[in-house]
């Protein structure tokens, strides 16, 4: 057992695990592990009573947005439990909320904005944090930014660019707006309102979560002014053009820049001096769920540093659990773009905007239609 896991204080659990495995292998009784689990307590909350976590919990998730062996490991450990993923997670607030309303899901992947709205409607089940002690491994700022569930990943919106093609150093959003006419048709922005408008608000010196109508209108004008010089608003493969130089400046997510930089080392990532917005994603339990103990148990399991590292290594995302660093692939852990701690300074996390959501949407449509 690793240093980190020992720090988690789960030595009793290790013994119980061994007993479970011995029972399964030696006696050939598949249910023995479950019985042992059911009889024993858990100092880590890794599993509560197995009989209460048996069954199938349905999760709304992105395709392949799960550690390669996390679910299998959990199901092996907790016989009779099953995690069924439906890859239908929506990137829109409305889509997420409608899914949670459907009664199909026990828990879901969602960002902080959607989670906030779902909570405002009463769709989010409050979690019993005593069952999820591994939440302590998550950085405090991420927990604060994602209070209704367990944070799993985040994405900062910064600047990716090609210094060799731009010919000068970019250090701010102001530089992007200044250089856009010079590199007209070679600048790409993100096609998601919260990220794109949030970054533009930062450029204007406002909060990335602003709900002030005059600031939002100024944001619209700034985006409309730069739009003729944009190659596109993209929501996938945003920085791909940086590889071959068809794009020279991109408003982009950290993980996308890190990914493209692996293929084109000339790409540079910029933490804009005005600051950045970032989304936080995580798992929330749905109030209508009848498998809350199973959901909480799986959440706790997925936050174990080794399991969480498997998720990070599978997806390549920027991660929220510093304790997982020893198990994270060096290409990610040593990447200053993705590693937590250094990167999160000067970041404002996106959160639920309340009634101002409609105004954001209208302004975003005005930008797109202009």
């Amino acid at each position, binding site marked *: 057992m690793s240093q980190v896991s020992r720090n988690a204080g789960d030595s009793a659990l290790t013994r119980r695990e061994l007993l479970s495995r011995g029972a399964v292998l030696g006696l050939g009784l598949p249910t023995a592990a479950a019985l042992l689990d059911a009889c024993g307590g858990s100092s880590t909350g890794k599993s509560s009573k197995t009989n209460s976590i048996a069954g199938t919990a349905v999760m709304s998730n992105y395709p392949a947005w799960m550690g390669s062996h996390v679910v299998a490991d959990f199901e092996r450990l907790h016989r009779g439990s099953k995690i069924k993923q439906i890859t239908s997670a929506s990137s829109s607030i*409305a889509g997420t*909320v409608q899914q949670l309303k459907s009664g199909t899901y026990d828990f879901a992947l969602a960002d902080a904005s959607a989670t906030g709205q779902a909570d405002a409607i009463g769709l989010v089940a409050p979690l019993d944090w005593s069952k999820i002690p591994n939440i302590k491994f998550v950085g405090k700022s991420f927990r604060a930014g994602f209070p209704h569930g367990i944070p799993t990943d985040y994405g900062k919106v910064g600047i990716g660019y090609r210094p060799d093609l731009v010919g000068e150093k970019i250090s701010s959003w102001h530089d992007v707006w200044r250089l856009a006419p010079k590199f007209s048709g070679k600048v790409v922005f993100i096609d998601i309102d919260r990220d794109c408008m949030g970054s533009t608000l930062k450029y204007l010196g406002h909060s990335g979560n602003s709900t002030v109508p005059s600031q939002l209108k100024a944001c619209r004008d700034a985006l409309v002014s730069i739009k003729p010089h944009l190659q*596109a608003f*993209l929501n996938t493969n945003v920085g791909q053009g940086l590889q*071959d130089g068809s794009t020279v400046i991109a408003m982009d997510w950290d993980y996308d820049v890190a990914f493209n930089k692996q293929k084109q080392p000339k790409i540079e990532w910029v933490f804009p001096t005005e600051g950045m917005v970032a989304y936080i994603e995580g798992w929330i339990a749905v109030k209508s769920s009848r498998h809350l103990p199973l959901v909480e148990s799986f959440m706790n399991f997925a936050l174990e540093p080794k399991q969480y590292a498997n998720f990070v290594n599978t997806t390549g995302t920027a991660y929220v659990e510093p304790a997982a660093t020893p198990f994270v692939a060096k290409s990610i852990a040593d990447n200053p773009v993705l590693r937590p701690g250094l990167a999160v300074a000067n970041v404002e996390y996106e959160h639920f905007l309340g009634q101002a*959501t409609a105004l954001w*949407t209208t302004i975003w449509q005005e930008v*797109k*239609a202009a």
Partner: protein
Amino acid sequence: MDDDLAGGEGSIVVAEPASASRVRIPDRLIARRHRILAGLLVAPTAGWTLVFFVAPLILITVFSFASENLVTFNVSFGWTASNYGAFGGSLYLWTLLRSVGLSLGTTLGCAVLGLPLAYFITRQRPGVQRILLACVIVPFWTSFLVRTYSWVNLLQSGGPLDRLAQGLTGHRFEVLYTPTSIAIGIVYSYLPLMVLPIYVALERVNPDLYDVAADLGARPWRQFRRVVLPLARPGLIAGIIIVGVPAMGEYVIPEILGGGKTLMIGNIIVSEFLDVGNYPFGSALAVSLMTILMIMLFALRRVQPALEAR
């Protein structure tokens, strides 16, 4: 019952084997059976249409007069027309005009490319015709999304078409993520829907007519203008309807080839439903678009006889 079996005027005598007695089935029984049979035959289609077309249409129309709290997503049916009022805003009108323009332009593009192609196919031997028709249809066997995404590679900066243009003219052909790339994508996707009805119209034409026109001194262009075009007109009109209507509401192609910079009305409707979650306003936009299309179709229907008679 006895009357029915006894037969009489207006009955049918059913021939039975010699051992059996002759039975007369009255007309009204036969008519009733026909009605039942017809009803059974129509029922699946009628049921399907009712459930999956009429009911959603009614639902969307009802929703278009509702209002919604965009935080709770609770819809209240207060019969308000405010959604239709919002449609009058410059943002949506401008987008609608852009959609109409792109739809008309791409339909014209399909007609200009499809008519000569269909004519060329009909002038081939039957075996060659089948091969050429297969060439027109085969792309439909591939996923629409895959075909559309393939245009991203073809049109992108440094892509095959860009390199070809540079080689031939010295100028770059950088049209990806512009209205031009959307138009190219729509024409490519809908061209078979224009070619096939025109082919059907021209395929029925006696080829001797072309020879007669030539014998009477008509040069190829005059032949095409005075013989082929009038004969192709019914197919052309059908093609215009089949291409123009879906092109107007297209949203996938603008999404992929427009780079999020060129919105069509279909994109706004999708956004209202999936991103904003404003079902009433999305419904109002959908009903408005449908109404506009119906008006255009009725107008076309009124002028169609005159066009075909010319």
